[in-house]
């Protein structure tokens, strides 16, 4: 393509758009079904129990240490499916592009989508492109849907956490949000932490081979706090965390100290928290630690029959404090 910037014409449905798809999108994504350019992809699902999810991605900046909006879109969607115990199979990719977006940015994002969908073992089989006026879409917004199959006996729900279960997490929390904060204009913080953005399908499979998973959740927006609160509420249980066992990198701790943030409220993009039966915890933990995305896995607490929906944390002194669901965006504070 000779142009360097995306224009309204590229979303117009005419020849410009055709060129965009045939010369940029299809070659970079490289998916045969996609290239058929039908109105819909016709698929045969290898099983009857299907997991179906949708998500939208509006991250700013588009590129951050450890990832970009494309990687985020693929992994985020794949992970939603994996949290149900499903094998992710197909993704859609809806792009809303800002007029004036450099083609080089679009190409970089598409390359990332291709790379990570291959890594996750999924195909991007259908999609859509729209262009909106300059000033909208922060460069680019991405919407996806994802579909996968749940094998016999593999289905997981957050409702399944039961009193006595052990809580496991697959590594350091807060990395993603801190990697993005570092890039955010104005804060002027130099961090070396990279986003933990990663596809977790393989990790979940390894865990299911090792034992029974009662509940899974990926702690994205709202962090571990939101994920655990939802798990406790949905399953009618209470959760007790052990503060000393929470894996938090020193840099993430430092940023939290500086900005007055709580690591439990920070977004993650490559983490899951699992509630597993006590007798299987050790086996599952070992399987997690043996997987590249779970090397720093930790046992962080347990599920109890306390007050429904309550999440409490035991401090190093042995006292307890309650964790509440964050009501909105976490702002840095000076007080």
């Amino acid at each position, binding site marked *: 393509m000779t142009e360097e910037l995306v224009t309204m014409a590229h979303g117009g449905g005419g020849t410009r758009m055709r060129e965009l798809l045939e010369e940029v999108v299809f070659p970079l994504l490289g998916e045969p079904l996609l290239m058929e350019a039908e109105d819909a992809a016709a698929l045969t699902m290898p099983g009857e129990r299907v997991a179906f999810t949708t998500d939208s991605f509006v991250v700013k900046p588009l590129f951050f240490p450890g990832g970009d909006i494309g990687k985020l879109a693929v992994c985020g969607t794949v992970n939603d499916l994996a949290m149900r115990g499903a094998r992710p199979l197909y993704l859609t990719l809806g792009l809303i592009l800002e007029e004036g977006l450099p083609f080089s940015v679009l190409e970089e994002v598409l390359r990332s989508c291709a790379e990570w969908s291959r890594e996750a073992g999924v195909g991007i089989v259908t999609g859509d492109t729209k262009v909106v006026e300059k000033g909208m879409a922060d460069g680019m917004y991405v919407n996806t849907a994802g579909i996968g199959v749940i094998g016999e006996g593999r289905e997981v729900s957050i409702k399944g956490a039961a009193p006595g279960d052990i809580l496991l997490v697959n590594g350091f929390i807060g990395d993603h949000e801190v990697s993005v904060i570092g890039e955010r204009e104005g804060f*002027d*913080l*130099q*961090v*070396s932490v990279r986003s933990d953005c990663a596809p977790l399908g393989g990790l979940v499979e390894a865990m299911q081979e090792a034992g029974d998973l009662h509940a899974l959740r990926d702690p994205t927006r709202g962090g571990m706090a939101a994920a655990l609160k939802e798990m406790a509420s949905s399953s009618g249980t209470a959760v007790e965390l052990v503060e000393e066992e929470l894996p938090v990198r*020193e*840099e993430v*701790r*430092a*940023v939290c*100290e*500086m900005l*007055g943030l709580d690591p439990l409220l920070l977004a993650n993009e490559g983490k899951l928290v699992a509630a597993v039966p006590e007798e299987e915890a050790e086996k599952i933990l070992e399987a997690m630690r043996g997987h590249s995305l779970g090397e720093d896995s930790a046992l962080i607490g347990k599920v109890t029959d306390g007050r429904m929906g309550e999440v409490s944390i035991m401090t190093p002194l042995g006292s307890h404090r309650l964790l509440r669901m964050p009501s909105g965006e976490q702002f840095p*504070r*000076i*007080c």
Partner: protein
Amino acid sequence: MCLAVPAEVLELKENDMALTELGGVRKDVSLMLVDDVKAGDYVLVHAGFAIEKIDKVEAEKTLELFEEIAKLDEVY
């Protein structure tokens, strides 16, 4: 109004600024409110400004005092 963290001064920069580090995170802070700061000093950082130098001798003394108190109680 009191959120401030101790950070190590790595190097002095122009315009009365300094590069500081805490736990591996680096940040430029203003030295407008403090005097005689050099690399290796620790400063208390509040909202992008150093508001005081940490007195390392006093810090040590304080820690020793705390440890005293803790040990004394073991004896009981």
